[in-house]
């Protein structure tokens, strides 16, 4: 019994340590800042597409941990890649995402995020910030969850839309691609470069 109690105590300590490793309020404020900037200065603004892309690129580089995400999405192939391949992949992955997400972000036009609390993460120094987006009359609100990592500053490492994680989707896609490609990671880099043009 004593052992069980101490186990619970330890588990409680561990949980509180993990939960307090990142400040929930600050993480939420960070996401509020990012979404406000994204919607007000990019999506809802009347500037040219080139200017929108430039602003988006800045936001993307500033608030997303692209190196970290790139490493994650390459999955098990990260370990087998050379330093040159890794560096090339990170670079092309960033360009590619800036380009595709700049367009996709337009889907948020006229929408606003409601903040509905945070959820602790199993990964140290990370937290989920939960938001919902009103979809208009007759539609259930959409769930958008932001995975935030605390390092020197807060960074977004994943966005989960209606249970679909963008990082996991990319990881599944890229590992499936590399598995089938004759030249593995090099083919992926080449293809991404082509699509980033």
């Amino acid at each position, binding site marked *: 019994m004593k052992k069980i109690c101490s186990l619970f105590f330890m588990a409680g300590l561990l949980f509180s340590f993990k939960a307090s490793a990142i400040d929930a309020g600050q993480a939420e404020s960070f996401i509020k800042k990012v979404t406000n900037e994204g919607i007000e200065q990019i999506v809802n603004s009347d500037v040219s597409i080139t200017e929108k892309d430039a602003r988006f690129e800045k936001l993307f580089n500033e608030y997303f941990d692209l190196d970290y995400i790139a490493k994650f999405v390459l999955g098990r192939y990260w370990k087998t890649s050379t330093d040159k391949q890794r560096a090339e992949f990170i670079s092309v992955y960033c360009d590619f995402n800036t380009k595709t997400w700049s367009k996709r972000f337009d889907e948020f036009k006229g929408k606003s995020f409601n903040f509905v609390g945070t959820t602790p993460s199993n990964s140290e120094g*990370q937290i989920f910030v939960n938001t919902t987006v009103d979809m208009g009359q007759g539609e259930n609100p959409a769930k958008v969850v932001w995975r935030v990592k605390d390092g020197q500053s807060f960074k977004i490492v994943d966005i989960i839309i209606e249970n679909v994680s963008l*990082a996991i989707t990319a990881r599944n896609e890229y590992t499936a691609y590399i598995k089938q490609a004759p030249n593995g990671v090099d083919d992926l880099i080449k293809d991404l470069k082509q699509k980033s043009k």
Partner: protein
Amino acid sequence: MKKICALFLSFTLVACATNPNGTKMKVSEEESKLEVYNRAMFNFNYQVDKKVLKPIAKGYKAITTQGIRNRVTNFFNNLEEPASAINNLLQGELVGSGQSVARFAINTTLGLLGTFDVASGWGLEKKSNSFDATMAKYCVPDGPFFIMPILGPSTPRYLVGWGVDAFADPMYWALLDKQDEDWAVIATYGSTALKYINKRAENMALLDSLEEGSVDFYATIKSAFLQNRQKFQSICAAPVEDKTSAASYDFDFEDEE
């Protein structure tokens, strides 16, 4: 944004095959065969979409306004309320069931056959539910993922749920005993065609951008479809812990298929 959700929740052109929980597993020979079939069927569906469905949806989009398409979407959403009411009831969600009944009654009458969602304005929010979710609630396994010709991404449970819910469609009952009359046949096929063309048109921009942003479109759709279905795991009376669910997966860079 609406389109993103619509895609993940309801777009049914393309499908996928892997183990149902997305968990780490050695790919067996059967799964490899299923994967080969799925990729082939995905390509077939993709071609059908490219050559038939998408051009029709483009034309439809050109001759309709967003307002008209919203009315069409509302009309078909309203026809799903009886299925939601029954499934909410089967899952013990009495309030949700009552809400679906009330929404159907209000929107069918005051909302002009469901084309306007009057009930939401009165605070009666939509409580969508499906037989797929009911089966999940009673822990019926999902089964392997496969691509249906034309219909797209599926699992055995998903397909059964879809078929059962179709019986709760008021349109089906309204036209059931009139199938020897031409107008009823036209109405049946016409409404089904309109439903899917409208859905395809509303997802146009998102699908284009998803395809543009992927190097393996099949793998992207497969992954998104599988992840979205993980929401059902938590409603089963004895949920299976799954580390790959979006809310609990570790960013630990471990090997993962």
